[in-house]
């Protein structure tokens, strides 16, 4: 069992949910998160021009959506591919995907454990 954590653009959440549901992975947890990458935030002056060489970032943390999806081991690659296909715009800020191990899961309603609980 693995946990796929994806940090994606705010406006891609609807398309991502639809694509994941189509591929058969409808369960997910979405969280509002703030993030930044190697560029250390957004550099925008009042006129809206982007100046990547200025020293201080104007927006230090950019609003993002974080998705947590727990799937069994075989489905990881399909989920990752779906997330990348939908969320790729080719521009900086598309986000990142992490795949972490998950030891156990319990469905609270029935008490099922392991893969049955997913």
């Amino acid at each position, binding site marked *: 069992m*693995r946990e796929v954590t*994806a*940090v*994606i653009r705010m406006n891609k959440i609807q398309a991502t949910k639809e694509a994941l549901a189509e591929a058969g992975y409808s369960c997910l947890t979405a*969280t*509002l*998160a*703030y*993030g*930044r*990458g*190697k560029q*250390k935030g957004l550099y925008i002056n009042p006129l809206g021009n982007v100046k990547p060489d200025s020293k201080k970032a104007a927006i*230090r*943390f950019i609003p*993002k959506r*974080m998705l947590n999806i727990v799937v069994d081991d075989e489905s*990881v690659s399909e989920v*990752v591919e779906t*997330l*990348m296909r939908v*969320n*790729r*715009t*080719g*521009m*900086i*800020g*598309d*986000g*990142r*995907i*992490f*795949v*972490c*191990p998950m030891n156990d899961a319990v469905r609270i309603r029935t008490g099922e454990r392991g893969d049955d609980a997913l």
Partner: protein
Amino acid sequence: MGDVMQMIRAIIRPEKVDEVVDSLDNGGFCAFTRIDVFGRGRQKGIQIGPTVYDELAKVMLLIAANDEDTDEIIGIIEDNARTGSFGDGKIFISPIDEAYTIRTGERGL
């Protein structure tokens, strides 16, 4: 890709975030995710007069790091987020199997 990556989840005081972020920046670690969370610790919250606050506002920083950088990052967070009183927060470290950049589809950080 043989290198091991770790996810560092640091739960710290909201007023210490800027300090921690700036110091990590200077140490060369500039990529984070920040989430506003609520939590309590072993003291079960805080009591001021008759009022009990059992969910205190904290900030969770998620930092993905290569294995060899982990100790340095933890040290920086510890030094900058510490006040010495209860409620300074906790740091959790867990392994990451794979990481992808969506824009390029590359593996790794």
